[in-house]
């Protein structure tokens, strides 16, 4: 405050303003400005400004440097009639199916590891750790893993497969996308599993005990106690995997570089922007993707509003009440 006073005495700031700044309201204003400016500026410069520029760029034929030409909707027409783009959208189906497999596996192992298991934290740790490996390191690992006669082939021949009958995992167009999706499952399944374990653990332990006293078997426990209580997070992850598969990028980027029909929509866009420097067309692609994501998100909001209006806690409470009633009946 000393600085303000001297500044005011020198006549730089009018007295009234100093008074206001020292008042409660002024203090509030000061703290709000000084705490929010930097984060909001960063948000604007690196998220919203690029976003609006992207909309602008999508109407131009341009490179990063040099003259540009207004082309109207040509970029969008180009993208939507491009065979490669259509093919890449088909690829996202592989990733979508992959992420459903991933969720199912995660749910299976999460349910298992939520109950007493010998070496449980070891299993949990090893399944989860791949999530912490950087994409680039993972890329090298799997290039090595899938190379002809290397890790995967060797292990398969141990189990009894004949090397001649095995395909080239990254070259053969009939299997290479599946091989890539598998690496994505390898990396992210553990993370999903940890989320599910967290949700299952938040269910009241007593529920399981009372349920097993009532003679409910494991399947019943899963169906009537675990599943309702984690329904929300499972459905949320299912919807997220739609946007996730539309924006699949890492596996082909680090492992195949998008060669031999493995280029996803995102990778195509990356190459368009940074390889061919077709900035306008890349922006149009980004916006088309963004529109799709918005649609999926709106759908998600609607689904949650109408189908999941009862929240987690209530569901498990309901189950608890039901079980209590049943028990009371049986006691009679």
């Amino acid at each position, binding site marked *: 405050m000393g600085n303000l006073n001297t500044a005011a005495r020198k006549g730089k700031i009018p007295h009234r303003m100093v008074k206001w700044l020292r008042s409660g309201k002024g203090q509030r204003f000061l703290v709000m400005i000084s705490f929010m400016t930097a984060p909001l500026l960063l948000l604007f410069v690196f998220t919203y400004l690029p976003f609006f520029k992207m909309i602008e*760029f999508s109407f131009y034929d341009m490179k990063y440097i040099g003259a540009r030409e207004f082309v109207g909707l040509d970029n969008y027409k180009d993208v939507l009639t491009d065979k490669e783009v259509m093919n890449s959208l088909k690829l996202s189906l592989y990733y979508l199916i992959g992420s459903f497999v991933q969720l199912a596996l995660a749910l299976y192992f999460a349910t298992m590891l939520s109950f007493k298991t010998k070496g449980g934290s070891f299993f949990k740790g090893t399944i989860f750790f791949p999530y912490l490996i950087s994409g680039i390191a993972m890329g090298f690992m799997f290039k090595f893993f899938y190379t002809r006669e290397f890790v995967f082939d060797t292990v398969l021949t141990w189990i009894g497969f004949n090397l001649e009958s095995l395909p080239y995992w990254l070259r053969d167009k009939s299997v290479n996308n599946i091989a890539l999706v598998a690496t994505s499952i390898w990396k992210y399944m553990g993370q999903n599993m940890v989320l599910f374990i967290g949700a299952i653990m938040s269910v009241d332990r007593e529920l399981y005990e009372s349920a097993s006293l009532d003679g409910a078997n494991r399947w019943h426990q899963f169906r009537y106690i675990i599943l309702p209580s984690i329904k929300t997070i499972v459905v949320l992850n299912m919807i997220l995997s739609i946007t996730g598969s539309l924006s699949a990028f890492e596996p082909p980027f680090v492992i195949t570089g998008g060669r031999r029909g493995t280029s996803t929509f995102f990778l195509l866009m990356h190459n368009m922007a940074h390889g061919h420097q077709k900035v306008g067309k890349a922006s149009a692609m980004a916006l088309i993707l963004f529109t799709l994501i918005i649609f999926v998100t709106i759908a998600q909001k609607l689904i949650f509003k109408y189908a999941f209006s009862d929240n987690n806690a209530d569901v498990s409470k309901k189950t608890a009440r039901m079980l209590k009633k049943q028990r009371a009946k049986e006691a009679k």
Partner: protein
Amino acid sequence: MTIGQRILYILRTVIKYVSLLLVTIISLLPMVSTVITAFKTEVEYASTNVMTLPQSWTYLDNFITAWKDANMGLAFRNTLIIMIFVLFGSIMFGTMLAYILSRFDFRGNGLIRNLFLFATLIPGIATQVTVYQIMYSMKLINTLYGYIILMMGTDVISIYIFIQFFENIPKSLDESAIVDGSSYFGVFFKILFPLLKPAIITSMILKGVSTYNEYYMSNLYLQDKSKWVTVSTSLYTFTGPYGSQYNYICAGVLITMLPALIIFILCQKQIYSGLTQGAVKG
């Protein structure tokens, strides 16, 4: 238990452990094969199958060569600098913003929250097309501070973790401090910030891991690899002349993975709970 139930129980246990064992093997296999290959001499690598164990587990030449050729000393130094500033910056910005949003009622509060939420829908890598142009015009490409500034600003999940945490601290705590003559700054730095410690640790771990592993933007904005190589981009060295010299590549990969492994073993619990907290609202 009847005999039928007993058989069912045993069967279920067998299925459980067999499937756990199987998934563990699949999880570990790529990493185990990387370890095996990293300890092989060049001759050994060329003449034996990749899954054959190395002759000596103390042969470290591959690690030394990888460390030198990929300039990993510099890479670790750069990554350390980046992490210190990015973590400090994003924690400060995140907690300060969360403080304002959770404690002050003002017009625009909801709007700002929604702006951050909406930002998560914009696909990050897609906007790099135009972010690149903005970075270029601000002369931030190939500067460490440019990359640091970029990395500080995009962390919605930790903002939400902080807001959640603030909502569990009673408001009367800061109100009484204000009545006692403390300023808002004093309340934030002296009273609330220390209380946030668990949330700060959670978000530091999450942000730390993602900053350490980030390779896409560092490759794009720190192009001069002789000066601004980071731990993850140092691995790009192995794409060119090394081609298929996997004994060196695997050693390099393992060096970059080691810090993540150590952090994971030390802070497993915090990582798990951090992820769970981040996912609830995010």
